[in-house]
C-alpha cells in the first residue's frame, strides 16, 4: 500500500508560506497563493483516505493568516503520529524538514534576488518615487556606451593583471620559505597573516595616513615630498614613459597612480590569506619527492619548478579564481582611500560604480544592469578559465 507523502506536503507548505509573504509584500499576485492553497487542500483531502487523523493537516490552510502554519502543521502531525512511519518515509520527512530552514532563507535572499535583479534591470530608472516604465534591454544598451562603465571595467582588468600575479608570486615565495622547517614559523606566519584579519576599513585608514601628501610616511621614505598619491589621476605607464617623451593614449596609460596605491594596499591585505592557503598546499606535498630529487642532484630551482609548481597548481588555480572574482568586488579600500572616487573618477571599480548608481543616484535599474553584466562576466571568465587553465592543473599527488 502506498503511504501519504508527508514530505511533499511539508515542502509545499514551505513554498506556500513564502508565497503568502511574497503576496503580502506585493511580489506575487493573489492567484499564485490561491493555487498553492488549492493544492495544499487537495493533498490534505487525499490524506484523509489514510486515516481520519490526517485532518490535523488542514491546520496548514490557515497559512493565509499565519504563513508558517503551512510548514508547521505537517511537522506537528509528524510529532504526534510519527511513530508508525517507516524508515524511508522518516528519512524523506526529516531530510526535507532539516533542509528547509536554510533553503527557504537561500531562496528568499539569494535565489529570488538574482532573478529580481534581472527583472529590475529591464525598467527605466526604478526608484519607487513613481511607477517605472518597461524599457527592455535599454539599460544594457546605455551601459555598453557608458564611458564610466568602461573605466570601471578597465580598472578591474588592471586590478587582476597587477594584484593577482604579484600577490601569488610573493605569497608562493613566502610560503616556500616558511616551508623550509624554519624556526619561529608561528611568529613569521603571524606577521604575514595579521593584515588579512584586520578590517579593511581600518587598514585603509592607516594606509591613507601613510599615503598622506605632506606628512605621509611613504613620501618621506621615497623622498617625494608633496606627491599626492591618492589624487593623481595620471596613468602609471604614462608617468613612467614621460621622461622618454612617449604619451600612451587612453587605456594604455595604465591604471592611475591613485589606483596603483589602492592595489598595493590590497596586495598587502590579502597576502596573508594566500600564504596560509599555499602553505597548507605545500605541506600536503609528500617529502619523499624532494628527497628523491635531492638524491638525483636536483637544484633548488629544479625542485621547485618540477615538483612544487605542478603539485601546487590546484591551490594556485583556486587562489587565481578567487583573485579574479575578488577584483569585481573591490569596494571598501576604494571607499575609504578615495571617497569621491579620486580625480575624474579614476579609481572607479565595478562594485563602486554599482553603489554610486544605486545608492547615490538612486537608479536601481541601471545599477541592476551593472550587477547583471558583472555576473555574466564572472560566469564567462570562470568558464573560460576552467577550460583553458584547468587542463594544466594537476590534481593528483
Amino acid at each position, binding site marked *: 500500500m502506498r503511504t501519504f507523502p508527508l*514530505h511533499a506536503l511539508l515542502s509545499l507548505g514551505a513554498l506556500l508560506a513564502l508565497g503568502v509573504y511574497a503576496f503580502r*509584500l506585493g511580489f506575487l499576485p493573489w492567484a499564485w497563493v490561491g493555487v498553492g492553497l488549492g493544492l495544499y487542500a487537495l493533498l490534505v483531502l487525499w490524506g484523509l483516505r489514510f486515516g481520519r487523523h490526517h485532518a490535523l493537516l488542514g491546520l496548514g490552510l490557515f497559512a493565509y493568516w499565519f504563513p508558517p502554519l503551512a510548514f508547521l502543521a505537517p511537522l506537528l502531525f509528524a510529532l504526534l503520529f510519527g511513530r508508525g512511519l517507516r524508515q524511508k518515509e522518516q*528519512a*524523506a520527512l*526529516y531530510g526535507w524538514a*532539516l*533542509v528547509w*530552514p*536554510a*533553503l527557504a*532563507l*537561500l531562496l528568499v*535572499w539569494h535565489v*529570488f*534576488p538574482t532573478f529580481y535583479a534581472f527583472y*529590475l534591470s529591464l525598467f527605466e530608472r526604478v526608484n519607487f518615487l513613481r511607477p517605472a516604465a518597461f524599457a527592455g534591454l535599454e539599460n544594457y544598451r546605455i551601459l555598453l556606451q557608458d564611458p564610466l562603465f568602461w573605466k570601471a571595467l578597465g580598472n578591474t582588468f588592471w586590478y587582476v593583471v597587477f594584484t593577482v600575479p604579484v600577490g601569488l608570486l610573493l605569497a608562493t615565495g*613566502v610560503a616556500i620559505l616558511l616551508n623550509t622547517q624554519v624556526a619561529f614559523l608561528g611568529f*613569521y606566519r*603571524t*606577521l604575514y*597573516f*595579521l*593584515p*588579512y*584579519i584586520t*578590517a579593511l*576599513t*581600518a*587598514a585603509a585608514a*592607516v*594606509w591613507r*595616513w601613510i599615503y*598622506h601628501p*605632506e*606628512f605621509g610616511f611613504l613620501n618621506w621614505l621615497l623622498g617625494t615630498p608633496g606627491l599626492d598619491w591618492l589624487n593623481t589621476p595620471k596613468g602609471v605607464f604614462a608617468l613612467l614613459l614621460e621622461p622618454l617623451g612617449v604619451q600612451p593614449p587612453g587605456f594604455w596609460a595604465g591604471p592611475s597612480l591613485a589606483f596603483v596605491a589602492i592595489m598595493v594596499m590590497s596586495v*598587502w591585505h590579502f597576502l*596573508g590569506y594566500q600564504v*596560509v*592557503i599555499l*602553505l*597548507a598546499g605545500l605541506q600536503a606535498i609528500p617529502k619523499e619527492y624532494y628527497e628523491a630529487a635531492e638524491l638525483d642532484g636536483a637544484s633548488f630551482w629544479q625542485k621547485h619548478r618540477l615538483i612544487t609548481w605542478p603539485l601546487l597548481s*590546484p*591551490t594556485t588555480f*583556486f*587562489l587565481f579564481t578567487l583573485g579574479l572574482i575578488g577584483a*569585481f*568586488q573591490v569596494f*571598501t579600500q576604494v*571607499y*575609504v582611500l578615495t571617497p569621491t572616487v579620486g580625480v575624474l573618477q579614476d579609481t572607479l571599480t565595478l562594485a563602486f560604480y*554599482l553603489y554610486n548608481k544605486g*545608492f547615490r543616484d538612486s537608479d*536601481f535599474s541601471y*545599477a541592476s544592469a551593472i*550587477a547583471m553584466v*558583472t*555576473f555574466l562576466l*564572472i*560566469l564567462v571568465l*570562470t568558464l573560460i578559465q576552467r577550460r583553458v587553465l584547468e587542463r594544466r592543473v594537476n590534481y593528483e599527488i
Partner: protein
Amino acid sequence: MRFRPGVLFVHLLLLLGGLVMAFPFYWMLATSLKSPQEALQAKPVWVPERMKPGNWLKAARLGDSPLWGGLAPGRSVELVFPGREGHPPRALVPRTPGAFFDPRADGTRVEVVYREGAWRVRLTNATEEAFRFLPLVVLWPKEVPLAAPLPPDAIRSQGEYWRLEWVNAVPGALGYVLHNYLEAWHAAPWGRYFFNSFFTALTQVAVGLFLAALAAFALARIPFPGKEAVFVLILATMMVPGEVLLIPNYVLLARLGWLDTYYALIVPWLASVFGIFLLRQFYLSLPQDLFDAARIDGAGYLTQLFRIALPLSLPGLVSYGIFTFLGAYNALLWPLIVTQSPEMRTVQLGLQAFVSEAGSDYGALMAASTFVILPVILGYFFAQRQFIQGIARSGLK
C-alpha cells in the same frame, strides 16, 4: 647541528618581508600615541614621547590618581620647571575656543612661584566639579634652558617666549599615554557601535551555524527524495556574486520595512552556502558505522545529529564561526547601505564616519583604528591555531 648559511638567508628574507607587512601596524600604533604636533611632521617621529616609560613616570605624578589623573575640587597640582630667578614664566589655562563659559579656564587658580631653584606652576581647582582634562599653556623665556616636568604636546615660538602647550596637565600615566584613545572614544558612541557589531556578528554565527548544521546533516547523511536537486540549487547560488544581491535585497528589506534595523544587518546573511558545504564535508568524512550503531540503539536522526555529528565536527564549526564572524565584523558595504541612523552603525561604519570627520587629527584616527581591530587581533592571539586552520580549510576542496 651544522650551521647553514642558507638558513640565515631565509630568516633575513622572511624578516624583511615581515617588517614590511608589520610596518603599517607599528605606524598606526605609533601615530595613535602622538600629539598632533608630533604626527604632523614631514620627518617621521619614530618613537613618540608618550611611548617612553620615563615620561609615564613623570605623568603619574601629575593628577590625583597615578593611573588616570584628574583634579578633584579643592585639590592642586604642581608642575616643576628648573630655572633661574628673574626670568619668570607665565602660565594660563586656555579657553576652549568659542565656549561661552569654560569652568576649567575660569575656575582654576594659577600661581607661579620660585622656590628652591625651580619655577613652580601650581594649578588649583576652585570649582565644585572634578576635572578630567586640564589644558595648560606655559610661556617660557627663550634665554633660559628648558626642562619641562612633562614633554609638552606642542612647542611654538611666541616673541620672547616659547609657548609650551599641554592638552592635559593632570593626565596620570594611562591618561597621558592613552590620550588619543580617550579622545577618539568620547568623540563618537563607540560603545553602541561595538554592541551593534558584536550583536550582529554573533547572532549571524549562532543562528547561521545552527541552520547550516541542520541542512548539511540532511544533505550528507539522510537519503531523501529530491536531495540532488537541493544540492544543485545550493551549488548554483554559489555562482552568484554578492554584488548582484545588493539592490534586490535592499528593495526587499525596504518593502519589509526592515531598513535601519538589526534584521537588515543579520537576516540576509543567515543562510550560508559556504557553511553548508563545509559542514557537509565534515559529516561525510565521519564513518558510517557510527551512525549505524546509533540507529541500532534506537537513535533518531535528530539524536544522531546533535549527539554524534555535531560534537565530532567541532573543528568545522569553529572554522565556520571564525569565518562568519570576521566577515560580519569587518563588513562595510552592507551596513553602509542598509543603515542610516547613527544608533545602527557598526564599528566599521563608525570608523568610516570618523575618517571623514576627524580631519587632520591623525592621532585620534589611528587610535580609533586600533581599537576597532583590537578584538579580532586579540581573538587571533587567543586562538591562533583555529584561525589559521579555519582560514586554510576554506581553500581545501
